[in-house]
């Protein structure tokens, strides 16, 4: 038994090795430093800001100067302080939505693949129904009826990931569920839940990591978008998405109030996407195969 399955030590470290390999690749390094910079800004801002992010200190849309580095926003609040304070909630929400979406989706996909038959059909048909909603539309539907609560947005964005993650994980798990070592454990009478967690899941570490990276990028994009639309933290709380939309009227006078939060969101998303791609490359290998995996993931959004 111990000879047939890889040692616990090796399994536990597979994800770490993957992250390490991704981090030392060129794309990985660039991605990690971009995302790392933005995370640093958000974390610093969560602890310390030069001024109160909600106090009215200057003229509305005051131009930047040596004393007021990024100028004032449309109500005369300090843009620098608002930029610093406006990121950490987005990060927390994105991570939470990703974890919810990927774990639920992986569970559904693996369950469908392993149990097969009618369960499989039922689960995947259900997923098809939710695929018909673009992520942001699903979130808007839920937020529009219940109201813009932060936990609800996290849940809605997480649920939006579930069908796509389930499809990808099901496709990978189908192959593993047929392997001899799974059959062997089955014949010993081990319960399905134990087989899923003990035999199938450890073999899905790489695709799970790739999904986590991809979904994190999507979570950031959707949550920042919702916040831009006004469905996120409510004013006067600062958030990057919110700042972009409220300071648009002052684009001519003080563009920094829009440019800086927009750039931070863009850098964060680019960074996580590059790193996710580096993880995919570390897990899968050749360029052609990574690209085909991308096509498969995308195709999972459509057609039965």
């Amino acid at each position, binding site marked *: 038994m111990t000879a047939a399955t890889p040692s616990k030590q090796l399994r536990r470290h597979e994800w770490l090795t993957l992250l390490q390999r991704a981090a030392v690749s060129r*794309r990985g390094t660039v991605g990690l430093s971009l995302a790392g910079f933005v995370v640093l800004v958000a974390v610093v801002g969560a602890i310390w800001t030069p001024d109160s992010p909600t106090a009215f200190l200057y003229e509305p849309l005051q131009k930047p100067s040596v004393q007021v580095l990024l100028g004032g926003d449309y109500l005369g609040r300090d843009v620098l302080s608002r930029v610093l304070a406006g990121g950490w909630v987005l990060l927390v929400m994105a991570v939470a939505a990703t974890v919810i979406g990927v774990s639920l989706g992986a569970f559904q996909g693996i369950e469908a693949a392993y149990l097969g038959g009618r369960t499989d059909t039922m689960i995947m048909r259900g997923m*098809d*129904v*939710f*695929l*018909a*909603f*673009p*992520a*942001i*539309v699903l979130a*808007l*539907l*839920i*937020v*529009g*009826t*219940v*109201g813009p609560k932060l936990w609800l947005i996290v849940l809605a964005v997480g649920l939006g990931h579930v069908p796509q993650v389930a499809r990808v994980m099901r496709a990978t798990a189908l192959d593993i569920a047929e392997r001899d070592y799974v059959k062997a454990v089955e014949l010993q009478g081990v319960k399905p839940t134990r087989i899923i967690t003990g035999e199938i899941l450890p073999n899905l570490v790489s695709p799970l990591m790739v999904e986590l990276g991809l979904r994190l*990028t999507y979570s*950031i*994009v959707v949550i*920042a*978008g919702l916040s*831009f*639309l*006004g*469905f996120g933290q409510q004013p006067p709380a600062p958030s990057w998405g919110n700042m*972009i939309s409220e300071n*648009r009227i002052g*684009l*001519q006078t003080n*563009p920094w109030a*829009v*440019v800086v939060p*927009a750039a931070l*969101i*863009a850098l964060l*998303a*680019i960074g*996580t*996407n*590059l790193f996710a*791609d580096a993880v995919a490359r570390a897990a899968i290998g050749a360029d*052609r195969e990574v*690209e*085909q995996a*991308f*096509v498969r993931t*995308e*195709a999972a*959004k*459509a*057609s*039965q």
Partner: protein
Amino acid sequence: MIARAGTRRRAYVRAHPIASLVAGRTGQGIITLLLVSLVVFAATQLLPGNAARAILGFSATPQRIHALELELGLYRGWWSQYWGWLSGLPVGRLGTSLANSEPVWRLVEPRLLNSAVLVVVSGLTGCVLGIALGAVAALRHGSLLDNSMTVGALAVLAVPEFVVAIGVVILFSTVVFHLFPGVSLLTPGENILQAPRLLVLPALSLVIVTIPYVYRMTRAATLEALESPYVEMARLKGVPRWRVLVQHALPNALPPTIQVVGLTFLRLAGGIVLVEEVFDFPGIGQGLVNAVTDRDIPVIQFIVIALAAFYVVVNITTDVLALLCSPRRRIPA
């Protein structure tokens, strides 16, 4: 006689796998749409407490709440409410908007047209450019051009649509240049075809987010086609390079390309929501955001179901077209 007709009919279906596949896909699509409508309806039932009070707010008089309850049919059972809504969809009886008490269809119809124009213009432009760039990159696989375009695509692909749109506003309409209007305000009764200048920047933003996506999908599909056994065989036979491309690789690259175009349009259905909001473009994306802000449930329901129906229809169309274009898949499994 009846029995013979039955067998002949079955033989006909077997002889035309495409017909049966199309019928199957359409049937699946209709079932999906029905389930989608149930989800949309169920979501609007999530409204906590009394829906009428939640919509009108706490300052509303009991008379107004009562009137709204009657209008929304809150006294009926959920099944009757659902059926009332569903049966009205195909005939355009969509109820009245809660925000400005106009019929939903009259509010949404011009928006549907404007959004359709925006999606078609930007989708087609983005697809043509993305397919061309992707094919070039695949033909020069591993070159500096390929590598830099691929990394560029990876970066742009991650940037949220609304950030791209804001960037476009900054570049072309406010801070740097003043070439095109940054706000697409139409006079009432006018549609976007009558004011094409207003279409430029929203369409440009959507094209920018579309190109890297199409590029990446096309590049992968072309790489796969170029490395396939039949292309290798043709090359080994000494067929000229251009003929290998046109006669062998291209027909087999057609189905995946159709799929790419379909997926692009599906992506745009979500993308228009944010881009329309940035430009105040009078389409259904902005309509949805406004309706969500006002909690105008009949409008939300209709726009969401329209977007989902768009998804199902595009999906079936792409599947069928891809099927018609690939000789291999015409043989029933």
